[in-house]
Every structure is written in structure tokens, then in C-alpha cells.
């Protein structure tokens, strides 16, 4: 066994996995990763099950240190500067921290959450089949709360396997696609205003919900409906007319009308949209949405096929440079952490 010590961490960082399902009827929300595709990509790189527990790292800088042995990890999701003892390392590849080495993550750029997968996953005690943190319900393991500086995760000793990379281009542009309903008939003309307007995510957003800034969306018959069930991506409109997109720590039911629902394939991309950046919604038909949902499921299913040994990759250099985490002056990497030899 090795350990991964949280040497420094900002808010909104927690252990997350695919979430816990089957108890929404008792008021227990699934929780789980905000960006499931990024979680799955990080897990693939270290040979884990797609939705194994990993560390969802919030927008601020973070340092992890290997103790009691080497630890093999991989990063995916929101890009940020990353180094091990000042040696830059890449996203979308695996890497191994020697005992005592630290992995330093800078601020998230162009996204909010990065995922640090650990070979063998996080050791903990699952509740309802999941380690995902849901602080309000007192659930999550090894800590039923967001991670704090000084926390220590028991993890597997690094296998010494050849480092791996993934060819993986997540969609980052375009409107956030929605299916209208279930209560779009509560809004009349405001439905068109919702679709025609530019929106920004408020800085007061969290894992429960993303609050939107834009025009006031007025209800036809008032803002109280009898509570009914919610899903990830439900867009509810409370009395003040400012929509809230419900995220994985949402309440299982809600009493505000829901104008539309973000499609599954766009939920992670929406979760990664930084506060203050303008975006739009686009309504698609149920038939299109179902096609997209099946394509997204297929992408997840085939993700492990996109993983290959890192030294055979040319794409990784491009990914590294486009992520702007390696300067042109860097022309050699430590073979243990990054196996591509970059020529000047």
C-alpha cells in the first residue's frame, strides 16, 4: 500500500465516482462526478473501471504527495499547469509519483474540475455502492466531506506499468443542448426568451446547482408547483426568474417549474463552463437527444480502446502544447513520468 497525502487543496474538491443510484425514492441524490467523461478518461489511463472513485479537483491550486511508496495517477478534465518537482507533465496521460514526490496543480483554465485518477482507485467503504461525497447526507469515503489539507488516502502501490496516453478530443464549443420540458408549458413566450438569450453561470454556483445570469424568465401561473422529481440537468426557474441548472448534489424533488433539461452528452461540458463566460442553450428534439445519448454511451464504452502506450504517441505532444503546459524550451522529459522525447 501507498498513500496519497493532500498537501494543499482549495474548496470544492472531493472524492467522486459514478454516483450512487437506487435510493432517489428515499431522497438520496446520486452525487458523483460533475464531468463523467473526464472521470472516465482519467480512470482509463491507469487501468481502472470507468467510474471508479477519483479526486474531483476544484478550480484552485492543489498539491498531492506520494507517501509510503510510489503512486501512479492520471489527470483529465479542466486543463491547468501541472508539474512534478518543476518537471511539467501532461493531461490525458498517466504518470508515476515516486515516494515523497509531489504533484502540483495550478488554477483550472478553461474549465472548473479536473480529475485525478489513482491506479487501483481510492480505498474506502462504499455506501450504496459508491464512495462519492455527499456532505449533506454524511456520505462519502474515506472522508464524508470535501477534501482538506492533511487528508491521506490509502491507495495501491504503483504497478510500474508503462505509462499510457489517450487520444481524446472532448467537444468544448457550441451551445448547450436541451430537451424542453417537463414544465415548459408554464412559461409561454418566455420559453423563446430562454432559448434566444445569452447566459452566464453565477459565481455562487456549486455542486447542487448552477445559477444562471441573464434575462428574467417569467412564469405564466406563478412559481409554485407541487414538487416532482428532478434529474441532473433539470433547469428549474424559481420566483425571481433566474434559472438554476440542477447538478449531481441536487435535491431529489423540487417545487419550481422546470423549463428544460440539459442532455446527458452536454452535462459535463456544461459543468466545466467557467463562471462569467457567455453561452447559449439550443433546443433539440427528443429523437435527436436520444441519438446523442446513445452516441455518448458508445463514446464512454469505447474509451478504453483509445488508450495506448505513451511513447508511441505523437498526438500527446500536440495535446501538451495546445494545453500550453510545456514551454518550447522543454525538450526532454523524465522517462519515468513522461516518455515522449520532444525535439527542438
Amino acid at each position, binding site marked *: 500500500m501507498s498513500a496519497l497525502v493532500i498537501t494543499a487543496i482549495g474548496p470544492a474538491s472531493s472524492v467522486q465516482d459514478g454516483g450512487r443510484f437506487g435510493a432517489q425514492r428515499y431522497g438520496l441524490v446520486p452525487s458523483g462526478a460533475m464531468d463523467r467523461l473526464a472521470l472516465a478518461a482519467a480512470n482509463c489511463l491507469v487501468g481502472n473501471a470507468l467510474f471508479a472513485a477519483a479526486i474531483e479537483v476544484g478550480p484552485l491550486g492543489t498539491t498531492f504527495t506520494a507517501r509510503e511508496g510510489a503512486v501512479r495517477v492520471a489527470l483529465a478534465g479542466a486543463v491547468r499547469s501541472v508539474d512534478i518537482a518543476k518537471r511539467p507533465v501532461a493531461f490525458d496521460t498517466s504518470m508515476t509519483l515516486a515516494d515523497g514526490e509531489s504533484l502540483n496543480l495550478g488554477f483550472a483554465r478553461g474549465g472548473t474540475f479536473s480529475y485525478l485518477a489513482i491506479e487501483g482507485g481510492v480505498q474506502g467503504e462504499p455506501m450504496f455502492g459508491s464512495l462519492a461525497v455527499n456532505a449533506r447526507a454524511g456520505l462519502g469515503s474515506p472522508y464524508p466531506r470535501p477534501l482538506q489539507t492533511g487528508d491521506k488516502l490509502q491507495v495501491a502501490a504503483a504497478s510500474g506499468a508503462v505509462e499510457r496516453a489517450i487520444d481524446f478530443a472532448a467537444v468544448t464549443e457550441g451551445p448547450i443542448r436541451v430537451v424542453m*420540458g417537463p414544465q415548459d408549458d408554464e412559461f409561454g413566450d418566455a420559453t423563446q426568451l430562454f432559448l434566444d438569450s445569452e447566459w452566464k453561470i453565477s459565481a455562487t454556483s456549486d455542486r447542487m446547482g448552477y445559477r444562471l445570469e441573464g434575462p428574467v424568465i417569467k412564469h405564466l401561473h406563478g412559481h409554485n408547483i407541487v*414538487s*416532482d422529481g428532478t*434529474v441532473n440537468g433539470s433547469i428549474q426557474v424559481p420566483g425571481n426568474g433566474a434559472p438554476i441548472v440542477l447538478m449531481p448534489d441536487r435535491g431529489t424533488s423540487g417545487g419550481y417549474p422546470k423549463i428544460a*433539461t440539459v442532455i446527458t452528452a452536454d452535462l459535463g461540458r456544461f459543468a466545466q463552463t467557467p463562471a462569467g463566460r457567455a453561452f447559449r442553450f439550443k433546443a433539440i428534439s427528443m429523437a435527436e437527444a436520444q441519438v446523442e445519448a446513445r452516441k455518448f*454511451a458508445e463514446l464512454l464504452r469505447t474509451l478504453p480502446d483509445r488508450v495506448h502506450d505513451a511513447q508511441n504517441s505523437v498526438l500527446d505532444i500536440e495535446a501538451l502544447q495546445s494545453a500550453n503546459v510545456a514551454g518550447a524550451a522543454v525538450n526532454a522529459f523524465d522517462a519515468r513520468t513522461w516518455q515522449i522525447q520532444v525535439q527542438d
Partner: protein
Amino acid sequence: MAATLSPPRILPSGDSAITVEFSRNIDDDANRRVLALDRTMARDAIAGVTETVPTYRSLLVHYDPVQIGFEELGEKLTALAQLPVPPTISTRRWCIPVSYGGEHGIDLEDVAKTLNTTPDDIVARHVAGDYRVAMIGFTPGWSYLSGLEDFLQMPRRQNPRLLTPAGTISIGGVQTGVQCLAGPSGWHLLGRTAVRTYQLHRDPIFLLEPGDAVMFSAVDAKTFAEQDRAAESGEIVAELMAS
């Protein structure tokens, strides 16, 4: 007769869930149909359905669009929802002990004043009620009960409280509720129970099921304290009555 039941509305909740809506209002008949459909689906699983969430007036059905499409599932749900509804959904009846008033029910006096009666009368009326779990939601174990007598129905508070205690028993609108975890609430707080409707490391983790019958009994603050200690160590405290 099956033919007399109106079809529910089949509403899309994104690409992986359907809201089967029986009514827009709080309506006992609609809730009975919700719970009956939920029960039917638990008995005869539809391939591709992953989870169901009953609420007052609708059943949210989560599904995997790789296994079943919206149209096909919607047709199946419409047909199932029009089957005859059994008169009783659940035969379980719980008695939940409540310490009313004082620090445990800080709104009891005000509720009595608003309704032009005494706190004792409010308690007697609340205890006399025969309730049913219409839905569980919002936070783990928060059980919304139908069956509140008309006299006790009053609008929710203008200013919701940001924090109300675990185990709060409250009334709001036409409903009364058993709240498990501390949290925000806009309802009127009548008392507290030691019963945990949600408790990790206890079997069962969730005590109440949608459809269960519930009644309340009044206990004094000293009894509440004793029951609270027992509940903390994993005892159920609520009494399961003969059905």
C-alpha cells in the same frame, strides 16, 4: 374499471427520464395512482428502467436510452398507468413519537394563535390524524405525509428558516412532514421526534416507504431525550403497528 382511468401526461425530463404526471395538484387519488404504478413497476420490471421516484402527483422514471426509447417506454407507462388501482398500497402502519411544543416545536404557540385555538388542541388534532407517506424527497428521509385535516392547513412561512433541527415534525399547506436531517424549511415547526427516517449503518437505512401509513403519539421532553439516545445507538424507536 380500468376504462374510467384517464391517461397520465407523459412528460420528457431530458433524454434519460420520463415524468408520468397524474395531476398538477396535490391529490390523494393521483398519489394512489403514482404509488400503484410504482408498485407495478417494482413487481414487473421493464427492461431499461433503472430507478423510479414517486412524488405526490407524478412518477419519475429513470431509464437507459440505449436499452429502451422514449416513445416505447412512454406507451408502456401509459398502458400500465391505466390498470385498476388497488385500494390499499401498503399495509404497514407506523406510530411516531413526537415531543410537541417548547424548544422542540417553536411554532406551536403561533400556530394555535393563528388558528384561534390552544396549543393542546393543535397537538390533539395532529395526533388524531391518519396519515400516509405521499413521497420522500428533497433530502434523505424527508417524508411528506398526506391526510392533514383541513383545520390545520395554513400557508407556509413568508421567510423560510435556513436551519431547522433534525427530526422536526412540521405542517405546511395541506401537508405534514417528518424531516430527518437538519436543514432549511418554510414550514411551521410543531415538535421533534427521535425517530431517524434515515440512518446509516442501521438496518433498514431508510425506515419509511412511500405508501406507508403513519400516526403520531405525544411524548414529553424527557421521553424524547431517552428515545433520542436509543435512536442514536441504532434503535428504530418508531412503533410498527399491527396492520
